[in-house]
């Protein structure tokens, strides 16, 4: 389902500073209802920090973010009712069974046990986890954990699903299953914000992407439009776009300071493909 014109996420000049280090620097973008939005960037670019702010887990230093009509600072509980989060770290307790995990988090969202069961069952079946619901999560493989983790995030039937590198470290089969699942969810009207390093994944799933680098939005457009900006290559991939915009240098972040080996990459300067 392609996005309608209504913005479900509106971010304006969002900034996060940790002491002197600016992790996210006046970031602005919007996400339309029903789209799959890709949030791309090198390690330490500020992707996760943005997600933490949008999901009320971290307070912005300045700027504004409106999620499903609610302000992340003022209407936190309202925002929380509309979002699901699959974070970098898997939000499940190893010593509880999958069902116990789902029940626990579901109950915190005000669901009863039977509601949790009903709501999770269809997702569990789609993600092929129904046989494992009564085993402790600690006995699972990473891929199995991630699938239950996604079910957990969907318990409240969120309007927006935040996926922070959902296929990182998973085998090709699970990755394929999860990507298919994301598409299907989106088909049901769920807006998806996805961060990834995987350019193939982003290219295959996302309607529009934002590339974030050094805490700033370096590019923000549909995948097709971004590809057009790569002039020195025929049939460029999203990876070409990414490297063109963020450069080829490896980023080392230590103690909040960014060190770049060499200057900026070939092609463009950092900001010249910014589209608002």
């Amino acid at each position, binding site marked *: 389902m392609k996005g309608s014109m209504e913005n479900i996420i509106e971010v304006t000049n969002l900034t996060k500073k940790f002491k002197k280090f600016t992790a996210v620097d006046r970031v602005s973008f919007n996400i339309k209802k029903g789209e799959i939005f890709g949030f791309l960037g090198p390690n330490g670019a500020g992707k996760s920090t943005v997600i933490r702010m949008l999901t009320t887990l971290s307070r912005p230093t300045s700027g504004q973010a409106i999620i499903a009509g609610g302000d992340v600072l003022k209407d936190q509980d309202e925002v929380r009712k509309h979002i699901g989060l699959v974070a970098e770290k898997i*939000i499940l307790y190893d*010593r509880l069974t999958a069902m116990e995990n789902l029940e626990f988090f579901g109950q915190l969202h005000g669901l009863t046990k039977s509601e949790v069961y009903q709501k999770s069952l269809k997702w569990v079946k789609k993600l092929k986890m129904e046989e494992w619901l009564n085993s402790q999560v600690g006995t699972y493989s990473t891929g199995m954990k991630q699938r239950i983790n996604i079910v957990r995030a969907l318990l409240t039937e969120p309007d927006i699903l935040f996926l922070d590198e959902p296929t990182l470290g998973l085998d090709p089969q699970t990755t394929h299953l999860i990507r298919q699942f994301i598409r299907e969810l989106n088909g049901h009207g769920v807006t998806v914000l996805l961060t990834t390093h995987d350019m193939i994944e982003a290219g295959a799933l996302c309607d529009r992407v934002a590339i974030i680098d050094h805490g700033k939005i370096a590019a923000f457009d549909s995948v097709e439009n971004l590809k057009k900006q790569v002039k020195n290559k025929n049939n460029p991939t999203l990876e070409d776009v990414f490297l063109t915009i963020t450069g080829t240098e490896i980023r080392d972040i230590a103690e909040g300071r960014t060190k770049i080996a060499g200057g900026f990459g070939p092609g463009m300067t950092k900001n010249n493909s910014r589209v608002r």
Partner: protein
Amino acid sequence: MFKIFRDLWQITKKDLIEFTRDKLRLATFFIMPMFMMIMVGFIFPSQNSLKNISIGIVQSQSGEIGQKLADSVASLEPTAGSKAFKVTQYSSIEAIKDGIKKQEISGGLFIPSDFSDKIVSGGQTEVTIVEDQSNPQISQMVDAILSKTVEGFSQALGAEKLSQILITVNSLPQNQEHKVSIESIMTPIRANIVGLIAGNPNYFEFVAPGIIAMIVMTAVLTGLAASIAREKEQGTLDGMLISPINRLAIILGKAFAQSIRGLIQGIIVMILAIIFFGVTIHGNVLLIALILLLGVFSFVGLGILVSAVATEQETATQLLFMFQFPMLFLSGVFFPILLMPPFMQTISKIIPLTYAITALRKVMVLNAGFSAVQNEILILLVFGIVTLSISVPVFKRVITR
């Protein structure tokens, strides 16, 4: 308001289920208080600890009365069935000193060869107690017991002689109205010792309330900080933070789970103390529970504060160790606060554990009622309220950093 309690209980329940699934943690949970109890119970001196201490006696030339004194030392039984001393005969005071040097014996009694003769002939005589200065605790005990035995023996001899004199004295005509008794001469004043409870509490009864309070409180303090830090590290805290529940429910839910664990440990310790170490609980059990609960309450704030500051489990544990270690010594668990230097006494007054232990001791040992511990209860309450009102806002701020 009702929702906060429901959410809180969900978190408590979750924490406890998680905990019971961890077999190793569960095992240490039960073993730790037993270990603690057994260590403290057997290591610290009580009447039972005076058993079979090797001493040397020189008495071979000292005659019949000397022999009697030596026998009464050898047959001393502080508790029925177990002798205080294991006596070895030595030939001279030098030999006893040698024996102490070789650590064969922990002290000695030298009875001179003219001992009996001098007593029979109406003179005064003396014995020599040799002490092992390398071991002050043992030698203090040996000294005390030997001196007391010699003194008792000497008094008995004196009384025997006196009774013969008194027969003559009391038969005099001017003494017919008021006969003179042996006691009125030998011990004209007797000191009466009256306790508040029946029996004679041992050191363990002094320590037990302290250990119970300490175990409960360290369980809460370290348990809470470690458990919040662990959830932070693993990322599961985010799962709770992202749900539309009051942050207070998260903190209190976790604190409640730790308190339940702490109280269970406290009960284990109490039962062990009663069964194995003869501790009698004289006071009201409900009052004891109330004090423990308030003790826990007074500590929760500190636990929350530490877990807010520490980003990793290890940091939290280390930070807390820094608090706990001095607290153990300054709160009067093992040593009476009154015996500490004034500076230390002042510090001990700002530790909530001190008040919990004092109150617990009053109730458990002295059967004190509510009015006797109301000050401690009030202080614990204030402590809890103050630390919580500082730590909860700090925690709320820090977790959404």
